[in-house]
C-alpha cells in the first residue's frame, strides 16, 4: 500500500474493489468480531452470571430435589443428572447468545458493520465464536460442581474432556437457532420470550433428568428424536465410561443439520434488517 500520496484517487479505488469477500477474509473478519465480543464480555462481567452461577446453583438444586425420588439417593443420581445439567446450561447459554445479538444489533455500531465491505455473516459468527468460551466455562463448572457433590465420572479425564468438547460443539450449533430468533425478533425481550419457548421443551422433553421409560409412549417418541437427548446420552457415555457410541454420531449429525438450516436463515434475516 502506497502511503506516499495522500490524495484520494476514485478511479483507482473503483478498479481496486472486489466483488465479494474471500473465505479467508471471512474467517479473519469473524475473528476480529470475536475479539470485539470478548472485549465486551471482559468489560461487562455480569454477562458471565448465567455461565457461572447457574451451573453451580442448578447442579446442587436438581441433585438434592430429584436425587432421592429418581435414583434413591443423590450420589447415584449424579451420573444420570450431570450430563443433563451440562446440556441444559449450554442451551441456556445459547439463549443468551440470541438475546445479546439482538441488543447488539440495536446499537449504532451495527450500522457501521453494515456499511463496511465485510462478510455479512461475520457480525453474527464473531460473537458466537467468542461464546465458545462461555460454553466451555458452563460445561466445565457443571462437572466441577458435580464432583464437589460426590460425582466420580467413570470415563476419567479423557472422557470428561470429550464430553465437554461435544457439549461445546452442540451448544455452538444450536446457538444458530437463537441467533436466527435474535435477527427476527423485534426486541431483546421478545428474543428472551421466544427462546424460552424453544428451550424448555428441548431440555425437559428429553432424557436429561428422568429415565425415558417413565414417560408416556407418545412423549417417548419426541424424547428419542430430540437432539438434546442424543447430546445427553452421548455425554453420559463419554463421561461415565469413556466410550464413543452411536449417540455421539447422532449428536454431531444433529448439530450439523441445525447449523445447515439456521445459519443461512440467520444470515438472510440479518441482511433483511439492512
Amino acid at each position, binding site marked *: 500500500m502506497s502511503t506516499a500520496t495522500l490524495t484520494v484517487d476514485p478511479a483507482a479505488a473503483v478498479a481496486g474493489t*472486489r466483488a465479494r469477500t474471500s473465505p479467508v477474509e471471512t474467517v479473519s473478519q469473524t475473528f*476480529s468480531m470475536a475479539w470485539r465480543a470478548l*472485549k465486551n464480555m471482559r468489560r461487562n462481567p455480569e454477562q458471565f452470571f448465567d455461565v457461572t452461577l447457574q451451573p453451580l446453583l442448578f447442579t446442587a438444586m436438581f441433585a438434592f430435589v430429584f436425587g432421592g425420588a429418581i435414583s434413591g439417593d443423590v450420589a447415584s443420581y449424579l451420573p444420570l443428572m450431570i450430563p443433563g445439567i451440562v446440556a441444559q446450561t449450554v442451551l441456556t447459554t445459547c439463549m443468551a447468545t440470541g438475546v445479546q445479538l439482538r441488543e447488539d*444489533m*440495536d446499537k*449504532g*455500531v451495527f*450500522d*457501521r458493520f453494515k456499511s463496511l465491505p465485510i462478510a455479512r455473516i461475520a457480525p453474527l459468527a464473531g460473537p458466537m465464536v467468542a461464546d465458545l468460551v462461555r460454553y466451555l466455562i458452563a460445561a466445565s463448572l457443571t462437572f466441577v460442581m458435580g464432583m464437589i457433590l460426590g460425582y466420580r465420572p467413570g470415563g476419567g479425564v479423557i472422557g470428561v474432556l470429550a464430553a465437554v468438547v461435544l457439549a461445546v460443539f452442540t451448544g455452538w450449533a444450536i446457538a444458530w437457532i437463537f441467533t436466527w430468533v435474535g435477527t427476527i425478533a423485534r426486541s431483546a425481550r421478545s428474543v428472551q420470550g421466544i427462546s424460552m419457548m424453544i428451550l424448555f421443551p428441548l431440555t425437559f422433553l428429553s432424557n436429561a433428568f428422568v429415565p425415558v421409560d417413565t414417560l408416556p409412549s407418545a412423549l417417548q417418541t419426541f424424547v428419542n428424536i430430540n437432539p438434546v437427548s442424543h447430546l445427553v446420552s452421548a455425554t453420559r457415555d463419554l463421561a461415565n465410561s469413556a466410550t464413543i457410541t452411536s449417540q455421539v454420531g447422532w449428536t454431531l449429525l444433529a448439530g450439523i443439520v441445525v447449523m445447515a438450516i439456521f445459519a443461512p436463515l440467520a444470515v438472510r434475516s440479518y441482511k433483511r434488517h*439492512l
Partner: protein
Amino acid sequence: MTETPAVHASGLLKTFGALRAVDGIDLEVSQGEILGVLGPNGAGKTTMLRMLATLLPIDAGTAHIFGVDVAREPHRVRQLIGVTGQYASVDENLTASENLWLFGRLQGMRSADARATAGRLLVQFGLEEAAERPLSQFSGGMRRRLDLAASLITRPPLIFLDEPTTGLDPRTRGQMWDTIRSLVAEGCTVLLTTQYLDEADQLADRIAVIDRGRKVAEGTPDELKASVGSSTLQLQLAAGSDQAVACDVVRRVLGSEPVLTPESGRINAPLTVADRAADVLIALRESAVAIDSVSVAKPTLDEVFLTITGHDATHEPDRTNDDEPAMEVAR
C-alpha cells in the same frame, strides 16, 4: 472525457407502508464536490442517504456510486464509501483506538497497519489524549469526531455525512467544517445532510433541498439564496428619534420601501447588497437620527422553506424515525 459522477441516482423511491419517505429523487454529485442535502426533520434526507450507502434496500429507481450499481453490487460500493451517521456508530465498550483498530482489521489491514492508521487518525482528529479512555467519558463532539475518523480508515473517495454537526457547540461545529473541507482538499467527494442553511452555505458547492421525500430545489448556495430573496436590514431607533425622517432616509438610500413599526420604533427594510447597510447608517447620522441597534438578518431555513415549498419547515412529523424502530433505539 467526462468523469464518472461520484453519485448518480434517478427516481429513488422508498416507502414505509403507505408513507413515501423518499419519493422519486434524482441526484448527481460530481467528483470532488460537496453536495449539501438540506431539509427539515423527516424530509427523507436520512432515508435517501441510507439507501445510497447500501444500508437500506432501494424500492425503485437506480443509484450508482462512481458508476457501480448500489443495488447490484453493494459489496463493491461499500469499499468506496465512508458513512458517518447522526448517532455514533462506534462500539461504546471499546476505547477510541480499539474501535479504529477493529474497523481497520475488518477491512483487511494487518494488525500493525491498523494500529498505525488508528494512531494517525486519532492525532489528526485531536483525540490522541483520549485514545485509551472508555467512550462513556467522551463528549458529543469527541464521539462525532471519532465516528468520522472511523469512516476514513481506508480513505474512501466518497463520504456520507448525516447531519454531522447537529447537537454540537459552535466551536466544535467549526472544527468539523474544517475537517470536511480538508477531506475535499484531498480529493474526497462529500454528500452531507443538514438542517442548517448556514452549514450548507458554508460547506456545500451545491445544495439540494428535500421536502416530504421530494427534491424541491437545487443549485449553488447563492442561487438558492437569490431564489429565497434578499436579507433584511433591521433598525431599532433610539427613543425620541424622528421616525418619519428615518424612513425617508432608508427609502432614499436603499430605493425600497421600509416597514415601520411605530410602537417599538423598529424599521425593517429589504437589503439586496449588505454593503448598503453602511450607507444607510451614514445617511442616518448625517440626518441626526439616533439608533439603538442595527442588524442584518440572513434568510433562515424557515424562510427558504416558506418560499420554496409554501409551508413551514418546522412542525413536520419525524417520519424517518417513526418507521425505523431499530434506529430509534440506537440513539
